[in-house]
């Protein structure tokens, strides 16, 4: 048994690249962006005595005459096509309410899920009554954003075999701004586990399923015990994700993999110690710079 107690230390921010090109225009609420009245104000700004002022903390984006401030830490603002990992909070008539770290709960309509066996038919009253047999409160799902309602709530769908109810694994909740937008968010990492990087900041780690793919599209969740080696890989990945998030690094399959490789020299539970986190993130940043150049 181990107890790790220490005095707190001030965290130093560390970054390898200090070039002027990387200097982003960061503002905090109240900072004056410009006194020029020729600009249109976008999201995150307001006009205070003819001066354009920021109302959120983030970076300034300018598109021709439009100035807006994109906040660094914000709730998830979904766009059509985003992959999200969410948790069912309510079962209502003909739809489920899903929590996706956005301002409003997202909606998953009964007509937007696949029926078992892949049937294509009109949903009947019986389907409505057996909704809870498929998805209950507390279940995790992976889904795609189909559309955005006028109030900003997202409408999700799981009409593909790769989406659906998630089985055994670990959920890591991070900030949505740390997830890089990529072509695909489902990765089978070579270290032995699979990862779903949801755009809403929820990352799902699970053991790579065997050769036989689930035919039912998520209806059957296997409750077989996961092997110890797979568990170690998943725990290590989880700690690496938290280390990268603590140092505000962008998360995508390559950065997570490099971080995993850099952490192999330490024990799984030691990865969460502050000095080990710093070391691992430094190594990851170096590897990523080498990879790019």
């Amino acid at each position: 048994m181990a107890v790790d107690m220490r005095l707190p230390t001030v965290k130093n921010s560390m970054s390898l690249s200090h070039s002027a090109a990387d200097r982003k225009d960061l503002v905090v609420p109240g900072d004056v962006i410009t006194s020029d009245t020729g600009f249109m104000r976008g999201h995150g700004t307001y006009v205070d005595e003819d001066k354009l002022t920021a109302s959120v903390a983030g970076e300034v984006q300018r598109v021709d005459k439009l100035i807006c401030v994109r906040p660094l830490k914000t709730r998830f603002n979904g766009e059509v096509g985003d992959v999200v990992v969410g948790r069912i909070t309510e079962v209502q008539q003909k739809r489920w309410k899903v929590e996706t770290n956005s301002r409003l709960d997202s909606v998953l309509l009964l007509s937007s899920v696949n029926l078992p066996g892949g049937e294509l038919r009109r949903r009947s009253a019986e389907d409505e009554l057996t909704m809870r047999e498929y998805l209950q409160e507390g279940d995790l799902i992976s889904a795609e954003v189909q559309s955005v309602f006028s109030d900003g709530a997202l409408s999700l769908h799981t009409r593909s075999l790769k989406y659906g109810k998630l089985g055994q694994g670990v959920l890591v909740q991070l900030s949505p701004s740390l997830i890089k937008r990529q072509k695909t968010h489902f990765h089978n990492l070579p270290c032995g586990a699979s990862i779903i990087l949801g755009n809403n900041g929820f990352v799902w780690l699970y053991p790579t399923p065997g050769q036989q793919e689930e035919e039912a599209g998520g209806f059957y969740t296997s409750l077989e015990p996961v092997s110890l080696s797979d568990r170690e890989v998943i725990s290590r990945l989880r700690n690496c994700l938290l280390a990268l998030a603590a140092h505000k690094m962008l998360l995508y399959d390559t950065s997570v993999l490099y971080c995993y490789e850099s952490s192999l020299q330490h024990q799984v539970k030691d990865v969460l110690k502050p000095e080990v986190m710093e070391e691992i993130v430094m190594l990851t940043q170096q590897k990523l710079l080498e990879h790019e150049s």
Partner: protein
Amino acid sequence: MATVQVSEAEKVYILHGIRDDLRVDGRGCEDYRHMEVETDVVSNTDGSAKVTLGHTAVLVGIKAEIGKPRPMIANQGYLEFFVDCSANATPEFEGRGGEELGTELSNTLYKVFNNQHSLDLKSLCISPGEHCWVLYVDVLLLQCDGNLYDAISVAIKAALFNTKIPKVHISSDEEGGKEIELSDDPYDCMRLDVENVPCIVTLCKIGHRHVVDATLQEKACSVASLIISVTHKGIITCSRKVGRGSLDPESICEMIEAGKRVGKALHPPLMKLLQQEESLGNKRQKVGFLG
């Protein structure tokens, strides 16, 4: 306590992991998360400490005031506990939501310290039957990520170590009444001996095994927990069972043995850290709340 929702498959995953002694974050069943302890963070108290255990953050402030001793025990001072669950910790604590948890925590603290040996209460007596020191221990929960009892007990021990009680001189005035004078020198103070102050260990029963320092997800998978307070010699001062589920006597004995072992091992690193912090003196870089 703040709760998180966990799906059935996640519960099964956690259960099987604990059965194999590998929890979700790689810890063993008896390992604590990373803990940070800092004392003397609140300037207008006589002693204070802030403890961060994973994401749980607890702030303890101790104020010493002169009061009348309890009628049954006229030659001792006493401690008063108050736990405030701030709404900063979780939205469930908004308004009066945190009151129930707060009273439960303070009642447990009263039980833990309700013995002759944890703290030398006789040293808090000024004049028997008339004046004594009353230590008001105020606990503030800043962030809640599971395992509140352990963090609170470590913080209380650190704050008691840090407490400086001014020395008093008693003189009798003309009418024969007693006059109490506090010494003017801010460094002329009395420190408390915290060797025997117990630390609380919470053991959660998950499946057939028990874990120490459970996170909120693990707590959602357990139905019963045992809370025991252990001194540095391994003596138990208080034990309580919480939770809706039942524990059979065999597992209670097992959990008590494990708790004694874990609790005994908590004290040496804590005392070492407190002494190391004290020896740094003015050179210590105070982190406080802006770390």
